[in-house]
């Protein structure tokens, strides 16, 4: 199985004095469904940020989608990110754009024609049960609805890798279930690799998954 993420002796830090992840070795294969857990402040979100190049490794090597993140140029980083779908705990929707335009963002960036964007946006908003709110603005939606929009956006361009940071952290049961269904669907139907940072792994998951835990800067697989 191809490695979508490969970390060797990976160390991550925001400053030289405080290392958050220390000499971690792990890999995520293509099509894997992965959970990363750990206590608050253990470095889960930091590790996830490094996967989309927002944080460069302090030491060691990190390869994502065949690209070495340590040495990546800004144009290659943009190219890598165009194949990743990201879901944030705080949604990160563009406030001045409608829901439709927010979902279409990765498609626009990837250069899809407007009619294809419209069809895809319509399909995805149907999936997240929000097609009736296509012309609304994010602030007009509840937290759960905004996260469903963020999820639709992450799936819009059929990414090879989906990264989700606490995607159901603040959501009600209905929205949480919808998000998990979409993540499972992306993994099983679109064959996307899914990496989720969470405090809580749902019990009723319909896919096989890998589980990494972070403790004391070390990343290890929980069997």
């Amino acid at each position, binding site marked *: 199985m191809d490695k979508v993420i490969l970390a060797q002796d990976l160390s991550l830090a925001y400053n030289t004095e405080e290392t958050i992840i220390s000499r971690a070795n792990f890999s995520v294969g293509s099509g894997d469904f992965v959970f990363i857990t750990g206590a608050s402040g253990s470095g889960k979100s930091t590790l996830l*940020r490094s996967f*989309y190049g*927002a*944080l460069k490794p302090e030491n060691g090597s990190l390869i994502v989608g065949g690209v070495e993140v340590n040495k990546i140029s*800004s*144009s290659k*980083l*943009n*190219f*890598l*990110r*165009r*194949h*990743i779908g*990201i879901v944030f705990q705080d949604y*990160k*929707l*563009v*406030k*001045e*754009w409608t829901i439709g335009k927010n979902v279409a*963002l*990765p498609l626009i*960036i*990837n250069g899809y024609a407007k009619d294809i964007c419209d069809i895809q946006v319509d399909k995805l908003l149907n999936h997240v049960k929000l097609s009736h709110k296509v012309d609304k603005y994010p602030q007009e939606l509840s937290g759960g609805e905004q996260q469903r929009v963020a999820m639709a*956006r992450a799936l819009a361009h059929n990414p090879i890798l989906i990264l989700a940071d606490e995607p159901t952290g603040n959501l009600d049961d209905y929205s949480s279930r919808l998000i998990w269904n979409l993540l499972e669907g992306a993994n099983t139907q679109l064959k996307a690799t899914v990496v989720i940072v969470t405090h809580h792994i749902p019990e009723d998951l319909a896919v096989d998954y890998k589980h990494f835990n972070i403790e004391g800067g070390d990343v290890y697989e929980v069997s």
Partner: protein
Amino acid sequence: MKSVKNHLSLIVALFTIVFTMQIYIIVDRTVIAYESDLNENYSIVVVTKKKVGTDSLVAMSPKIKSAEEISTKEVISQLQSQMKQRHIDLLKLSLPHFYSLHLNHYPAPSEIKELRKKLERHSDITRIEDFAQSHDTLYKLLLLFKSVIVIFAIAVFAVTSLLVLKEMRIWQFQHNERMSIMAMFGAPVWMRSAVLFRLSIVDAIIASVLAIGTFTYADFLKVGSEQLQSIGIDILLFDPVNDSLLIVGIALSLSIILATLIVIGHKEEV
């Protein structure tokens, strides 16, 4: 409504800048016209024992633009009724020659002194009248006007800088989040910045149109021009072609610089 508000903040800032710039240009034109007017009305009068060529007087200093002989006929004709022809003929023979020297620019007092020294070296010149006292007063007044416009220019620059900096902070706050989100999905810099540049160009054009409209209307109503004409200054308050181009150019340059600074200073929020 929100979109209008976003546009309005930059339009107001840009309008203020170009409006103040145009006022500065008008004041500058007024001072230049006043200086030119003073220069036209100022001349040094020299008296010579015998007739000298005006070219030889002009050649004495590069500051002298032209020289012309002042005719004495008018003075003599006034005396004709009071004096006998014989005396008038004698007067004509003994009367010196008067020349009026016009200069290239309105001179500083030191330049007048220097010129006077040069003229004194001419063997035929017996007397020089440079009207130093009245010139000094006018020259000081001119210097005062010039100082005022320098202070005004500094004030314009300070206000402009503050407005641009303030606007930059607002824009950074407004656009940073969107640009960061776009970056996380792999948008290249030009795409992330496109909205910013589009917004800045549109706002610059709107601000320019408002400023051009204001000055065209003011020019149509002859605001200020009649007062200036009453003191002998006739200037173009608003040149529809050159000033409009300048206003559009300044507004566009400022807004594009502003957008570029924001793009350069953008830090990805993750």
